[in-house]
């Protein structure tokens, strides 16, 4: 099969309204996580990465009517719009749109519970597709917190099947009362900005963001670009919310991915881990990485910058990994204090310049799902 690449991209988050603003913020160790007091579920406030409606509308008014769309639709449209701007020659008749989201427009679920159309994830995706005039029906992947990377795999596989020649993968999720109160009922929200892999971690911080990336064959020769090599998912078959104590599903997804692609752990230059900063998740990841002998590979979690952006997180992290590979630049795992998982890991504690070629992206989520993906720099 011909290889597909991660081409133009966009990240819209509290750290910036395009990818370069986001990378600049990450490089300067800025976090989008702030204390907010606007939720009745948190007496003392909560830390999260929120994007103000006003700022979104200021940007959105340049391309559309803000009053016609929900907050998430605007974020997704802004992200897709930037990718299209970067690829003016793209033929929308042959370009797919793959949307990744867990809860979509869940902030529109009203107290009177009257069903409204925008709550259907397929409808939200159609709104985004119609805004630009995509000819094919958009595809929606909703598979908990691995959705963002699974949508990249989906785009790659469907291009391989000839369904479209290229595809834009766009992901988005919001910080709503719905997810805040849900994670709070799980006692999973940290009272400080989240601290992935640290001994003083106490749960997640949530974040909202949208991102988009164009997936397709690379048309520019002799230019470094990032190839999607492969991705494999595996279920823990253990518990619907608690991560496996043995890291079984994550271990299976990574080891099968390595075996299938004839890769050894020593060939991996960098791991973009999931690292949500819950006690059990980070511990589970350390066990899985240890089982595949990835202890020495430089690793970070981006959750300290963005919080957990749910269906967007693995997509944003894949885009950041792409830029890390291209720029030979690794970013510190923000908010890491003292080692807090049972296995030895090489967690990045400062930004580093280093020749990079092959990266592993992992993600895990509710429902016991896990995903491992290989991204590689090619010329």
């Amino acid at each position, binding site marked *: 099969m011909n290889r597909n690449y991660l081409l133009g991209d966009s990240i819209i988050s509290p750290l910036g309204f395009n990818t370069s603003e986001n990378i600049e913020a990450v490089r300067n160790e800025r976090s989008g996580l702030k204390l907010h007091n606007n939720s009745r579920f948190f007496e003392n406030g909560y830390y999260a990465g929120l994007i103000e409606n006003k700022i979104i509308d200021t940007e959105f008014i340049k391309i559309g009517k803000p009053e016609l769309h929900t907050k998430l639709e605007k974020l997704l449209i802004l992200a897709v719009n930037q990718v299209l701007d970067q690829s003016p020659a793209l033929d929308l008749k042959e370009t797919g749109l793959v949307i990744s989201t867990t809860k979509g427009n869940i902030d529109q*679920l009203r107290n009177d519970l009257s069903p409204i159309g925008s709550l259907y994830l397929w409808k939200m995706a159609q709104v985004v597709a119609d805004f630009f005039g995509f000819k094919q029906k958009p595809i929606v992947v909703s598979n908990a917190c691995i959705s963002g990377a699974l949508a990249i795999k989906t785009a790659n596989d469907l291009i391989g099947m000839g369904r479209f020649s290229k595809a834009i993968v766009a992901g988005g999720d919001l910080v709503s009362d719905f997810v805040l109160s849900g994670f709070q009922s799980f006692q999973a929200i940290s009272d400080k900005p989240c601290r992935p892999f640290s001994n003083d971690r106490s749960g997640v911080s949530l974040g909202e963001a949208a991102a988009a990336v164009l997936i397709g064959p690379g048309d520019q020769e002799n230019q470094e670009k990032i190839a999607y090599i492969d991705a494999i998912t595996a279920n823990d078959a253990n518990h*619907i919310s608690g991560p496996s104590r043995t890291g079984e599903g994550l271990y299976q997804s990574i080891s099968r991915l390595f075996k299938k692609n004839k890769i050894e752990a020593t060939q991996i230059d960098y791991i973009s881990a999931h690292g949500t900063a819950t006690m059990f998740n980070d511990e589970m990841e350390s066990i899985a990485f240890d089982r595949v002998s990835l202890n020495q590979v430089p690793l970070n979690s981006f959750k300290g910058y963005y919080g957990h952006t749910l269906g967007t997180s693995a997509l944003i992290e894949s885009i950041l990994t792409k830029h890390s590979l291209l720029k030979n630049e690794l970013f510190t795992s923000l908010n890491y204090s003292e080692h807090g998982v049972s296995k030895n890991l090489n967690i990045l504690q400062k930004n580093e310049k280093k020749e990079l070629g092959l990266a592993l992206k992992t993600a895990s989520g509710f*429902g016991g799902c896990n995903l491992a993906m290989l991204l590689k720099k090619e010329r």
Partner: protein
Amino acid sequence: MMSKELSIKNSLIIRESRVFRNGELIFEADQGLSTTKFLKKVYNDQKLKYSKFFKMDELSKLGYLGTEILTNGSIEDKETALVFANSASSLETDVAFAQTMEEFPSPSLFVYTLPNIMLGEISIRHQLRSENIFFISEEFDPLLFIDYTTALFQQEKVENVLCGWVNLHNNDYDVFLWKIANSGGMEFNEEELKKLYLPTHE
């Protein structure tokens, strides 16, 4: 790259208080029963003993029951991939959770506010540590299943796939499950899938 023909091995439908296996009516309850009551009747009729069933939300119950009946309670190939989709995601449970938000948000409802939890339930029941994906589309989209599943076979990642359309909205459920393998059944194409999904003799 292989180009073997894929085939549909078995199929199952649950809708309008009836259960069909390979086109044959195997269970029927009174029309107009609530989803919960109907599902419990199917559970009892199948003589299932799985206490986790009662903890599931209705969407997961539909997926669990469909899988038990389709596979006679046994999936031999533990690498059987799960490729599922629906239209309403977990909206029914989203609404139920939102109601609890007013007073005490319920963790046991919140966990079911993702459609792929059903895949976790099926994986736990059958100890499948396999490929999972959950798509959302307006209506049953045979070509999406065909394309994604065929890619899994072409990349030699699977030898068996359990596909499922499991939708639940406003007490209206629509379940269509089928197995895909390299040989031994009907041809895996759009026309056959459509015929199985909406039989004309109905």
